[in-house]
Each structure stands twice: as C-alpha cells, then as structure tokens.
C-alpha cells in the first residue's frame, strides 16, 4: 500500500508514493509581490551554472521557473537518482554563485510576457527594479543561503534524497511565510478585453482535510459553471497559500466572468459527501500531482489520503462556514 507519511510543517514536505519518479518544487514568496525580475535573474543565474546544466542534461532532470501569484516556483520532475545528483550539484552551485556574480557571469533574465503578465499587473510589479550586483546578492543571500527557500517532493523519495533536500530547503527566514495580502484592486472597473478574474478563499479557522474538500467542491463547481454552462472562461490557475487559496481565471470577458462568478458564489453552498470521490481523483491525477502536494504542504496537512476520505455531510458543512471570499478583476 502507499505510505504517504510526510515530513511536513517544516521547510520541506515530502509525500511518498510509489510512482517510480519524483516531482519537486522549490518555492519562496515575493515580498508584497514585488521583485519577480530579481528572482528570475537569480534563479536562472543559479541554474545557468555550467556544472548544474550538464548534470541536469545527463541525468534527465526537467525544471522550469514559474511565478504563481506571490510565489516564485522552481519546479520539475526527475528520477530519484537524477534529482539526488542535481541537488548535490545545486549545493555547489549555491556556493559558487557569489563568485560568478562578482565575475559578471550572471545575465539579466527576460520574463516571458504571456505567462506572468496577469501576476505582474495584479501586484504592480511591472516597474523596472534594481538589478545591480548588490541587489542580486542581497536577494540571493536572503533566500538561497539563509534558508528562505522551501521545498515539496512527491513521488518516490528514497531517504538519501530526502536528507539532501532538507539541506537545500533548510528552513529559516520564517517571517516571510505569512499569509500574503490580496493584490491591490484597480480603481476602475474592468473593460472588455483579455483580463484576469481573481477569487480568493480566505480561511478564518485552521486548514484541514474537511475544509480542503469543501472548498474544492465550491471552486470546482464554479469552474464547471463558468466553462461548461456559461462558456465564458475555461483557463484557471490555482495558487494556494497558508490560510487559503486563490483562483486566477483568465478570460476575454472579464466583466461578464466576474458577474457570473459573483452570482454563482452568492448562492447557498452545501458541500456533499457524494463529491468526495471526485476530490480524491483530483488529488491524485497527474496534472495536479505537484499542486496537491504543494497545497497540502502550505496547509500543513501531513498526509494525502490514500483512500476516499470518509467525511460526513455535517463535517463538510461546518468546514464550509470557515472562509471569506474576495473577488477582483484586472485587465491585461
């Protein structure tokens, strides 16, 4: 049977599952949502280390840099052996980084516009930032040397890999890991054109599996309503945080989508135990494999369920009373 005991509530969460490979995530927040350009430059500089690139190539380690809301994520997948080698070499790359920075061997990274534009506008992170060596060094020291980076592993995790990952995601700078504020709303209402509808579920109590199951039901029903019934928006990104989750919905009809979302969410909501199998499937599907692990890590849920959770209707309804909703809209 699967053993999903994890190491959690620290800087590294590991959810073991017999998949034969492992998906991994190193992440940290951006303070007030600013500084993506700095983060990207440092991460791409770090992973531009020639030894690291060569090891990633020869050991088949996939990785990519992505911004999700206020989080900076470096995620990927690999065999356990490949990831072990990569993390081993990453330690050396972290040590070499200051010297490479001094030798001007770190190029300024370019942000792919279509991927992160919504996040940059939402957090007003579009202004030029200081990319001087001093700024990069301060950033690098704060996150990568002082243990500001946290990690999630899900899949096949042998013990040596776990120990090595704990050195990378050492755990420190915990003052950064407070629930982030929602992005500042724009003063003018959205006009037609590409936009983002932002919906935030803010928990008032402690996160738990029951709260997660109930919240997921409402969010999934909302996405089904917007895509299948109203046919106005089908692309959405989940961004969990410590006391809730955000849904960033991309749409060409932001005003209509916002109205539809408000209509739907204002209806009485009654979570049902009959939807628990669908929640279980969602947790274990390939496309949500890493997201579910990340979400559980941020909510400090020690285990992902190995069987369909047995939660009563009453538990789910009680859990469903524990959040507030915030909806914003922006144009891109």
């Amino acid at each position, binding site marked *: *049977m*699967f053993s999903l005991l994890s190491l959690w509530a620290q800087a590294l969460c590991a959810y073991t*599952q*017999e*998949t*034969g*490979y492992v998906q991994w995530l190193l992440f940290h927040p951006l303070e007030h949502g600013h500084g993506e350009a700095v983060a990207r430059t440092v991460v791409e500089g770090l992973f531009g280390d020639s030894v690291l690139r*060569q090891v990633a*190539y*020869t*050991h*088949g380690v*996939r990785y990519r840099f992505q911004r999700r809301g206020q989080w900076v994520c470096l995620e990927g*997948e*690999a*065999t356990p052996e*490949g990831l072990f080698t990569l993390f081993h070499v990453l330690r050396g790359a972290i040590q070499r980084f200051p010297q490479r920075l001094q030798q001007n061997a770190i190029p300024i990274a370019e942000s792919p516009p279509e991927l992160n534009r919504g996040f940059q506008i939402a957090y007003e992170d579009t202004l030029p930032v200081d990319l001087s060596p001093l700024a990069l060094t301060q950033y690098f020291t704060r996150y990568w040397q002082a243990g500001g980076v946290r990690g999630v592993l899900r*899949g096949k995790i042998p013990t040596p890999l776990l120990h090595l990952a704990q050195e990378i995601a050492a755990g420190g700078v915990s003052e950064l890991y407070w629930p982030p504020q929602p992005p500042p709303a724009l003063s003018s209402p959205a006009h037609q054109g590409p936009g983002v509808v932002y919906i935030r579920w803010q928990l008032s109590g402690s996160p738990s599996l029951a709260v997660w199951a109930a919240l997921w039901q409402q969010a999934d029903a909302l996405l089904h309503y917007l895509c*299948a019934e109203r046919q106005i928006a089908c692309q959405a990104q989940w961004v969990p945080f410590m006391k809730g989750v955000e849904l960033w919905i991309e749409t060409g009809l932001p005003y209509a989508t916002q109205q539809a979302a408000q209509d739907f969410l204002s209806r009485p909501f009654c979570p049902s135990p*009959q*939807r*628990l*199998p*669908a*929640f*279980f*499937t*969602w947790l*274990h*599907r*390939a*496309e949500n*494999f890493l997201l579910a692990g990340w979400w559980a890590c941020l909510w400090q849920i020690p285990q992902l369920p*190995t*069987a*369909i959770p047995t939660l009563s209707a009453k538990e789910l309804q009680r859990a469903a009373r524990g959040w507030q909703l915030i909806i914003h809209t922006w144009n891109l």
Partner: protein
Amino acid sequence: MGTALWGLLGLIYGQVIELQSGKPRLVTFPELGSKRPLLWVALAWRHPPAYQELGRIVAFLVAQEDTLNPSSAALRRQLGNLGGHLSLWSMPEGAAVCLTVPRRAAVEAVSWLYAALRALPLQDSLAWQRLRQRAAKAWTGFALKQEVEWLLRGSPLLPPSLAWPQALAYIQRYLAPESLYVIFGGSLSFREKFQIGRLPLKIPLKPVSDSLPSLAVPPIPDTLIQNLWAYPGYVGLLVEGPLNWKERLAFREAFLSRWQREAPPLQWSLHLRDRTHLLLQARLDGRSYAFLRRLSTLTAQDSLEAQAWQAAFELFFRKVCAHPEEYPDLWITPVLMGDTLRLMDTLPAQVWRNGWPFRARGVWIGNETLALDTLVSTPPPARPPAAAVPDFLWTGPGLPPLGEWAAAFRLFWKPPCRRPCELSAYYRTVRERKRLTEYLHQLRLELIRTHQIPPEALEIYLRPLPVGFPPKAIRFRCFRC
C-alpha cells in the same frame, strides 16, 4: 478463455487479453500493478483511418457529452459521484472513451461505460445534431491546425455529408460489443473480473459490414506552403520511427532531447501513430525549422549524449507507467492493432550509438520571415563527427590493409593519449610464437616507416588463440584516450 501475452523477465510489460462471449474483451497490464490510488479504464474500438473525425463525434455520444439530454445529464452526474474524470481519444487506428476513477471503483467504471453504450441513440436525434455542430465548432480558432490535419490526411476532416445513417452504420459496424476492448491501466483481481463478467450489456446492434463508403487515404505528400499567418513557422509531419515499441519510445526521447538542446520549438505535440510513425505538430522559429529540415540521422554523438538520452528515456518510461491516463496513444494503439506491447525501462547502450535514420514528411508552413530570422542566418557550428575507435581484424589471405589501418589511426589518434594501440596475433602452439612475433614486428616497422605511425603509439601482443577464433587472425585495435 484467455490469451496471456506477458513477459516474465525483469521489467518487460505485456498485455493480457481475455475474451468474453458477447461482450467486450478485457485487456489488463498486470505489471502496472493494482496498488495505485487511481485506475485508468478505456473503452476502445477500431475504425479505418478515414473515420477519425466521425469516431471523435461518436465518442462524444458515448461519453454523454450532450448534457441538454436529460438521460445524458443523469449519467454524467452519476459519473461525477463516482469520482470519474472523463477524456476522449480518437486517432486513425480507433477511438476510445477513457475514465480515471478511484481504484476501488473499477467495476462501477465499467458499469458506467456499459450504461453509456446502452444509452446510445439508435435513431436520428437532436443529440446527434448538437454534437455534430459542436465538433465543427471545436475547430474554430484553429483554422491553421485544421488545414494541416486536412492536408495530412488528404481529405476533409468531416465527410461532406455526415448524416445520421452514416453515423448509425459506423456505430453498428464498429461499436458492436464483441468489437470493443475495455483496457485497464493495471491488473484486476479475480473478484473484479467476475463482477465485470456479470455486468449486463445488451445492445440491439447488428454487426454490419461494408455499409460505409470506403474513403481511401492517399499517401501524404511532402508539402511546403507559404503562409503569412503561420509566423514564424508551423509543421505537421509524420516521422518514421523504429518498428518495435520499446525503441519507439527511445526514438521519441532521443529526438525530443536533441531538439530541445539544439533548437527548441515554441510549441510542440508528438503522438504515436500506428506501428511505425509519430505525428509531430509544432510552432517553430527559423532555427528550429532549419534543424528539422537538416536532421537526417539520430545517433548519439558521444557517451554524454547517450547517457542523457538514456536518462530521458528512463524518466519517460516511469511517467508512462505511473500515469497511463496521460499517454493513451501508448496503451491503446497496440491493443487495437493487435501488437504485443513489450517495454523495458533500460536499453543497451548500443541502441543509442546505432541510432536511427530520421525521415519526416508532411506539411511545412513558413514564410519569408523564416529566412530573415536572424537565428537561422548563421547556422550553428556543425559538431565534428566523433571518430570511430579503430578495431580491425584481418584473417587473410595476403597482407593486412595497413594503409587503411593507418588512415583510421590518424583520424582517431590525438596526443597525449595514454594508452597505445595494439597489434595482436594469436598462437595455437608454442612453436608458432617465434614466427608470429617476427611477423608482427615486420608489420609494426612497416606501419612506422611507411605510414608514419608514432612508435610509442603501437605495441605488439601475442595471445593464445581463443576458442572459435580464426587461426591466422591479426588484430589492430585502439582504445579511447
């Protein structure tokens, strides 16, 4: 009755097909195990390549996609309560409706699929009209992709007059229960098989032969099209791959690894197609376009690349086995084509060194901006081919080809090289040793004086004759520096 086709050595995978009287065949992959939290189940059927689009619309029907129909809506609600995630698959080999369900719901998943089959309309209905319009709408906004698909197939995506009688004929011909396969991404217990065997499936479908017009699919021409809207470039290609399934996956990973490293595309999708081909569709910049045009063989250029390809292949293999629902091409196509799927998680290093030829033909869409693309104006420096390590065996008659050996040596030898090359002969009796030693010395002198091989780069060895080795053999062999 069951037909077991499995391998018992190491990690060789094969499917087990079990026949049921009057019902679909059950196909399981035992080595994928039964302990995963989710189970992938596919209801699949064969059809000729020309009916790919019709198959897709019929798959919509089976999957109860028409939620305006009350009975379809009820079935979809039932599926939601089961926790099932639905996806559709339609390729020239066949079509399928796939479910991903919690592991314990294996029998319920098959029950749902049978209920969906029983709910198929057998008369013309609004459901058919709605789904046909929906299928046409699905290509809205993807006109270029549709055009490429059309050109690749040599025929329009939808037959010109797709009336209900043709759809009914398709359903009767290809969806008769005995023609169906229920494919599981794992193994089933005896109890589950017994319960599945007892599920009712009575559909008034009479197998009909040859009632559908045969649409011939002409061979795909290699077509170059100028199209301003295709900036920067777009290709839809059929790539010829190796014949056996395990090398096909290796070819796929080797190609993707080389492509990403040298000239990554902007977007790509790669699907396995029939027994030998892969369908590649990609948006490209100029450099990537030129890379595909130039690529003629796919061989690991050195041990580093071979290692990278092996690692990529291993990762892909593990993903394919962990999440079969993400790779229906691999699990459904061999079943429909009657092949035995045998896979291994590692391949001998020789596979990467031997490589494969790369032949791609199909639709290449570009415009003059590709030529102006600065990325392609200076082609990347060609990597010099790795010199082969000389290893020659001469069994006579006459003198060995010293000139040829010396040429191979000069191509290969790069000082400082620590290990000298060997010139070896083999003796059967002790009396032969003196004669052979003198002969080897003569050959060595000849190579040094006439062919300018450095003396320190060549040594003589005399060895006992191995069993089965030709008696008068002379061997010239070098080693990697």
